[in-house]
């Protein structure tokens, strides 16, 4: 029983362990200066010595990331659905979505700051804009890949377009929505961190900014590592949710 449990934990976490060992090996082989890259043990010590600070900062960053992730995914899905209903909307939304997605973000920050000011809303908007694109693409693709037979069946029974959307198209697109949430989860956390870093709003990004300003590499990397850990955690949670959605739908 005991060893079974350990094997289970190991099968899930060896990837993370491997990544940390890789990092340690990198520092040893390359002999990096502490400023460039401290070793994982020093960073873990830095986290341990002030864990309360990191936990509360991580909580703030995660809350913002989850808010933006949910908003972005819902927005993307809504755009995909409106594109499915109207072709002109599809033509307007696809280029706009791509432009927002492929303009380097740093250019947009001054525009956001003018529109929204440097505050929490802006960080959430940044995360929303990072996560709506996968949801838009994958949900559109789920709606587009509907078996023609099921839509024909709906037509034969005289279902309106709205009814077909609610009863046939949306259920078929839900797995894609959850795949997109899993896809965006880790970048949502990192996006929130970068936005905090650029704007100086409280969270892991601000911790990183302050520590780097003081040339305290261990603390800066501690903030970055906590962000990476939070990103991976959110990704794994999203994977769990996706799996349970699939169980329920089968």
């Amino acid at each position: 029983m005991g060893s079974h449990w350990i094997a289970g934990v190991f099968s899930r976490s060896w990837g993370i362990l491997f990544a940390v060992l890789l990092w340690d090996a990198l520092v040893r082989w390359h002999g990096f200066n502490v400023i460039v890259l401290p070793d994982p043990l020093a960073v873990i010590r830095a986290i341990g010595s002030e864990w309360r600070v990191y936990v509360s900062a991580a909580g703030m960053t995660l809350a913002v990331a989850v808010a933006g992730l949910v908003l972005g995914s819902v927005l993307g899905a809504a755009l995909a659905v409106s594109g499915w209903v109207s072709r002109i909307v599809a033509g307007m939304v696809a280029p706009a979505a791509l432009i927002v997605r492929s303009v380097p973000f740093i250019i947009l920050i001054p525009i956001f700051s003018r529109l929204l000011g440097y505050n929490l809303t802006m960080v959430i908007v940044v995360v929303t804009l990072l996560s709506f694109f996968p949801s838009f693409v994958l949900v559109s693709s789920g709606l587009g890949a509907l078996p023609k037979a099921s839509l024909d069946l709906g037509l034969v029974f005289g279902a309106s377009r709205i009814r077909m959307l609610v009863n046939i198209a949306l259920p078929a697109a839900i797995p894609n929505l959850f795949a997109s949430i899993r896809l965006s989860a880790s970048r949502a956390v990192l996006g929130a961190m970068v936005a905090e870093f650029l704007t100086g709003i409280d969270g892991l990004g601000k911790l990183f900014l302050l520590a780097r300003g003081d040339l305290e590499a261990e603390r800066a990397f501690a903030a970055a590592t906590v962000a990476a850990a939070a990103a991976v955690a959110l990704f794994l949670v999203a994977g769990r949710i996706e799996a349970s959605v699939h169980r329920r739908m089968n």
Partner: protein
Amino acid sequence: MKSLAPKLVGAAIFLVIWEAIGRSGWLGESFPSLTQIGAVFERPAARELFVRALRVTASSALVALSLGALLAILLSFVAAVLPKLEPGLDALASCIYAVPAIAFGPVLILLSGPEATPIVLGTLSSYFPIHVALSSQLRYGAHAQHELARTLGASRFRTFALVDVPASVPAFLDGLRLAAPAAVLGAVLGEWFGAPRGLGVIIISALQNVRIPQMWAAAALCVMCSLLAYFALTEAHRRAVARFAG
């Protein structure tokens, strides 16, 4: 072709709205109109500079996208054939993707040199969407056909090669569609860390000299790369759905 007309109308409406906002000055100096951005390309010398930078960035992004696709195929196929490794591999893939570039950028430059950093960052940003799209499909898609093939006595490997892989082609193209803009952005970000040329270099130097139309002109070329890749892959995806998911 009939689906093209509404798309063009939609895109035209979008561009008109952009021009109007740019001219009104509502979003301030940092949001120029399209004509202001276009004026940047009027000087032949500037045009030449932008074309050269575009070539560098586009080729970095293309190499990065190909490497990212290979990496994603490798990761998700291994996970599909050896399901025991799957949770760990997934965690490893997400760990690498979760590395914050703002912290580890300097490390990357030391490891790969400023010339290769755009390709490395582009690869790191593009493998993950492909991996997630592919692995979701391999895990949950084509369930009925998979069970049927297994029940009829096909080996695990044959089922994978003849059922699961063909069924995952549309998902792969979906992943590529998401990854293409990510590869461009990754390459541009990589160019900020000291690359000799590229659109990212133009953006960062325009930013430092507050030359906003130049900055947007470079960004417009990034968008153009992404748009071209996206629409080509959308067409490929449409054909793949017709071929593999009929």
